[in-house]
C-alpha cells in the first residue's frame, strides 16, 4: 500500500464520490496531493508554481462546507491544477514565458472562476511550452517537463505539464489549452484522457491567446468520465467571450452512461490506418475490434484533400500568433526562446492571401467533416501515429522512414481544430517499450456528449487508463 493509502490512484470521479460520502476529507486529499508534488515534481518539472497555502485554505473551506451539508458537486474539495496560460487571481501566470514572468492577474479566467465556484481546490500552475507555441514543453525558462512513463521521453505539448501531472497523480484533473494539438498530444503521450471541445463551447476569457480562431480550453484527467465532470462545469456561454456559443450544454455526465450499442463510427478511408508505427497499429486495431464487438458499427468514409491539413494549420497557427505577439517581438525579441522567436519572425513574412487561402481550406474541410458526420456518430483515428519520442528528438521513425515531428503529430491532430469538431484522446494500449498509445474520437460540432460517451464505454471495457507509470511503483 503506498504512503497515501492508494488515495492518489483514485480517479477524479471516484475521489469525488468518497468526498461526497465524507469517507475522506478534502484536507486529507489535498495534503496527499501536495506531498506527492513535493516528492515527484523536482524530477518531472510539471509545475511552474505550487500554490500550497491557498490550496490548503480552499481544502479547509471545502471540508467545512461539506461537513455543514453544503456539497457543491463532483469537483468540491478535489485537487486540480491549471496550465499557466490560464489566469487564477492573485497567482503568477507566466504562460511559460520570460516576458510574463511577473504577471499576476487580478481576476480569474472564466474557466477558473467556474471551477472555483464548484469547490475545486487549485494546487498549482502547470508548465507548458512557451506561450503554448510548441509541442515539446522543452521550456528554456522553467525546465523540460518529463513523461512519467519514461523520464527520457517527451510529455508532449504545449500542455505538457498538465499531461505529466495527471499521469503522475499530482492532481486529479488539469486544464490544458488546445490550438492545434495541445490537449490531445500530451494526453496521448502520457496515457491519460483529454478533450478538445468545439470552438465556442468553453470561454477563453482570461486565457492567453495563441491563435484566436483555433484556441480552446480543455480538461485533461485520467478518464473520460473525469473529463466530462470538468467540462460540465467550465462549458457554456460567457458574455465576456463573444466567441462562446449560446447552444445549451447537454448533460455530459449523464449521457456518457449510454454505452456503445447502435453507435456508427467512421474510419477515414486510406488515412486512419495508414502510416502507423507497428505498436500503434496493433493497439488501434485491437481497440477498433473491441468497439465493434461491443455494439458499435464501423465503416470507412472518404474525406478528400487531407494531405493539406498540416499546411493549413501551420499557416494559421503561425500567422495569428505573429499578430498577437507583434509588439513584444519588436520590443523584447531577446526574451523569447529561440524556437518561438523564429516562428514569430516567420509569421511576419506570410502574406495576407496565404492566410486567407488556409482559412478557405478550413471552410472546405469543415463542410467535408459535417457531410461525413451526417450518418456517423464519430470518426476514429489514432491520436498520433507513433509513441512519445525521446526528449530533444525532432523526427520519428515510422515504417523505416524518418518523419518530421510536426508532420507526424499533425496527421491526425490537425483535423479537429481545422474542422471545428470536438475530439477526445484516450489511451488504447502500450508499445513494447511501455509507452502509451492514444486513440482519437472526433465528434460532430457541439457533440462532446457522444465523444465522451464513446471514451467512457471504451474505458469500461479496458484498463489502459488505470495503469500506473513505473515512476510511482
Amino acid at each position, binding site marked *: 500500500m503506498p504512503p497515501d493509502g492508494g488515495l492518489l490512484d483514485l480517479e477524479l470521479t471516484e475521489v469525488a464520490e468518497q468526498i461526497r460520502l465524507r469517507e475522506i476529507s478534502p484536507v486529507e486529499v489535498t495534503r496527499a496531493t501536495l506531498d506527492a508534488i513535493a516528492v515527484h515534481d523536482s524530477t518531472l518539472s510539471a509545475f511552474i508554481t505550487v500554490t500550497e497555502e491557498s490550496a490548503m485554505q480552499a481544502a479547509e473551506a471545502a471540508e467545512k462546507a461539506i461537513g455543514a451539508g453544503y456539497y457543491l458537486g463532483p469537483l468540491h474539495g478535489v485537487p486540480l491544477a491549471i496550465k499557466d496560460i490560464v489566469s487564477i487571481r492573485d497567482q503568477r501566470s507566466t504562460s511559460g514565458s520570460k516576458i510574463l514572468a511577473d504577471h499576476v492577474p487580478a481576476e480569474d479566467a472564466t474557466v477558473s472562476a467556474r471551477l472555483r465556484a464548484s469547490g475545486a481546490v487549485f494546487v498549482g500552475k502547470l508548465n507548458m511550452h512557451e506561450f503554448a507555441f510548441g509541442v515539446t514543453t522543452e521550456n528554456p525558462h522553467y525546465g523540460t517537463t518529463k513523461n512519467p512513463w519514461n523520464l527520457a521521453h517527451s510529455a508532449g505539448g504545449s500542455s505538457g505539464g498538465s499531461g505529466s501531472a495527471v499521469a503522475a497523480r499530482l492532481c486529479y484533473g488539469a486544464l490544458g489549452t488546445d490550438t492545434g494539438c495541445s490537449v490531445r498530444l500530451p494526453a496521448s503521450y502520457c496515457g491519460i484522457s483529454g478533450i478538445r471541445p*468545439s470552438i465556442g463551447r468553453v470561454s477563453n476569457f482570461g486565457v492567453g491567446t495563441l491563435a484566436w480562431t483555433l484556441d480552446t480550453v480543455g480538461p485533461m484527467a485520467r478518464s473520460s468520465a473525469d473529463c466530462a465532470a470538468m467540462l460540465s462545469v467550465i462549458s457554456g456561454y460567457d458574455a465576456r467571450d*463573444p466567441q462562446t*456559443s449560446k*447552444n445549451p450544454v447537454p448533460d455530459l455526465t449523464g449521457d456518457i452512461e449510454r454505452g456503445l450499442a447502435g453507435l456508427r463510427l467512421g474510419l477515414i478511408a486510406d488515412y486512419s490506418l495508414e502510416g502507423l508505427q507497428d505498436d500503434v497499429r496493433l493497439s488501434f486495431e485491437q481497440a477498433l475490434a473491441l468497439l465493434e464487438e461491443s455494439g458499435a458499427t464501423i465503416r470507412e468514409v472518404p474525406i478528400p484533400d487531407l494531405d493539406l491539413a498540416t499546411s*493549413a494549420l501551420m499557416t494559421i497557427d503561425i500567422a495569428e500568433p505573429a499578430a498577437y505577439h507583434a509588439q513584444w517581438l519588436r520590443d523584447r525579441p531577446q526574451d523569447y526562446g529561440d524556437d518561438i522567436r523564429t516562428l514569430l519572425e*516567420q509569421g*511576419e513574412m506570410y502574406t495576407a492571401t496565404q492566410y486567407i487561402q488556409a*482559412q478557405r481550406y478550413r471552410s472546405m474541410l469543415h463542410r467535408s467533416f459535417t457531410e461525413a458526420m451526417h450518418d456517423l456518430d464519430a470518426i476514429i483515428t489514432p491520436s498520433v501515429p507513433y509513441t512519445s519520442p525521446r526528449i530533444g528528438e525532432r523526427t520519428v521513425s515510422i515504417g523505416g522512414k524518418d518523419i518530421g515531428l510536426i508532420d507526424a503529430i499533425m496527421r491526425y491532430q490537425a483535423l479537429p481544430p481545422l474542422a471545428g469538431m470536438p475530439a477526445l484522446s484516450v489511451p488504447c494500449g502500450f508499445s513494447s517499450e511501455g509507452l502509451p498509445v492514444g486513440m482519437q474520437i472526433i465528434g460532430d460540432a457541439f457533440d462532446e456528449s457522444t465523444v465522451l460517451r464513446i471514451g467512457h464505454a471504451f474505458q469500461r471495457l479496458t484498463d489502459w487508463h488505470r495503469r500506473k507509470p513505473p515512476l510511482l511503483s
Partner: protein
Amino acid sequence: MTTGQPLSAEQVVALLKFAGIQIGNERAGQLATASQELFAEVNRVSAFMGPRREIGMDVKFSHAQDRTEG
C-alpha cells in the same frame, strides 16, 4: 497556380524590415534556411485553394458555428 520560391537571406532582411523588424545578416541566413520547408507547405495550400473560387471563407466558422443561431 505555381508555388513560390525560397527566400534568400537578403530577401528575409528586406521583408522583415518592411514589417518593422531589424535582424542581422547571420540570423537572416538561419531564418531563410529554417523557413524553406515551412514556406513550401504554406504555398501548397495557396496553390490548391487558388483555383477553387467557389469556396468562400466562412467567417462565422471562427465564431462558434452556432447552429441554433445560424
